[in-house]
């Protein structure tokens, strides 16, 4: 029997049901995506718990240990990126952007653990895009007021409203499709490699592909998703 959670084995990268249950008369499937997302969440929660414990124990007398140094490095790097992109609005959105960053990054590189990356499912990336879209729209109405939004909609002329509306609603779709398709293509390439080549080729070489498709591509896409989210939100806030 093929383990439905593992990517390797067959040329098979589709989402599979692990088990189903009955929910008020509907058959609901728990799929690989749910299980992998749960594992990712578990990893993040454990990391956050340990990091929080380490931060709480800080005293000024002794130098911070290795783990604390790594945590500080990550946070300082992200803080720098966010504040350089968003300026003085950074403090309000730093929590959201960092959550997004950690979740997407760990999801993307979970192919290294042998999981099917949860972000290779459109059902995971589209909600992320929708959350960003809601934030953009909310901030637009909050900072530009209704008059500013209407003025932005009929930017060159009144008859441009449909085109501007399509442009607005294309944001979450393109944002989520970009992440989804990138990770899916990496997932498909890995599945093809593992499934099609004879076993003696598997020694050593997959590491290179994993580094490219999982680590490099995943990190770039995480960066791009967060960067675009920040840019769109900054655009919506405008420069007062």
């Amino acid at each position, binding site marked *: 029997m093929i383990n439905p959670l593992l990517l390797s084995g067959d040329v098979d990268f589709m989402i599979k049901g692990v088990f189903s249950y009955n929910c008020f008369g509907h058959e609901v499937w728990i799929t690989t995506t749910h299980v992998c997302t749960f594992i990712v969440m578990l990893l993040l929660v454990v990391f956050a718990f340990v990091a929080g414990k380490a931060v709480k124990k800080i005293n000024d007398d002794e130098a911070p240990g290795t783990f604390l140094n790594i945590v500080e490095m990550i946070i300082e790097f992200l803080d720098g990126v966010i504040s350089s992109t968003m300026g003085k609005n950074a403090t309000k959105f730093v929590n959201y952007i960092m959550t997004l960053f950690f979740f997407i990054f760990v999801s993307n590189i979970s192919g290294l653990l042998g999981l099917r990356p949860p972000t290779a499912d459109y059902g995971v990336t589209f909600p992320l895009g929708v959350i960003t879209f809601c934030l953009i729209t909310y901030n637009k109405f909050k900072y530009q007021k209704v008059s500013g939004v209407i003025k932005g909609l009929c930017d060159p002329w009144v008859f441009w409203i449909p085109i501007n509306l399509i442009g607005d609603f294309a944001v979450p779709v393109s944002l989520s499709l*970009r992440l989804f398709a990138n990770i899916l293509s990496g997932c498909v390439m890995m599945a093809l490699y593992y499934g099609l080549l004879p076993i003696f080729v598997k020694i050593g070489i997959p590491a290179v592909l994993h580094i490219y498709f999982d680590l490099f591509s995943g990190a770039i896409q995480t960066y791009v998703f967060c960067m675009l989210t920040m840019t769109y939100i900054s655009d919506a806030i405008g420069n007062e």
Partner: protein
Amino acid sequence: MNISGEDFIKGCSAIGAGLAVIAGIGPGVGQGIAAGHAAAAVGRNPGAKSDVTSTMLLGQAVAETTGLYGLLIAMLLLFVKPLV
């Protein structure tokens, strides 16, 4: 030789998937141009390397989207088989 309608549609879907992936040409050219200009910019002003690199990566990732749409169409034709 007898070819059923369903097989015919499957074969045509495979051809269509192959054609859809040709969309990868455009992003390839675009990303190459972006990387070339970024390299030139770093050559002129090596101090701005990190800024140039992050801008280049962002632009390349946005330019990649059209190619990914082609890939998505190919995937849909091959695995979801909407026309069968």
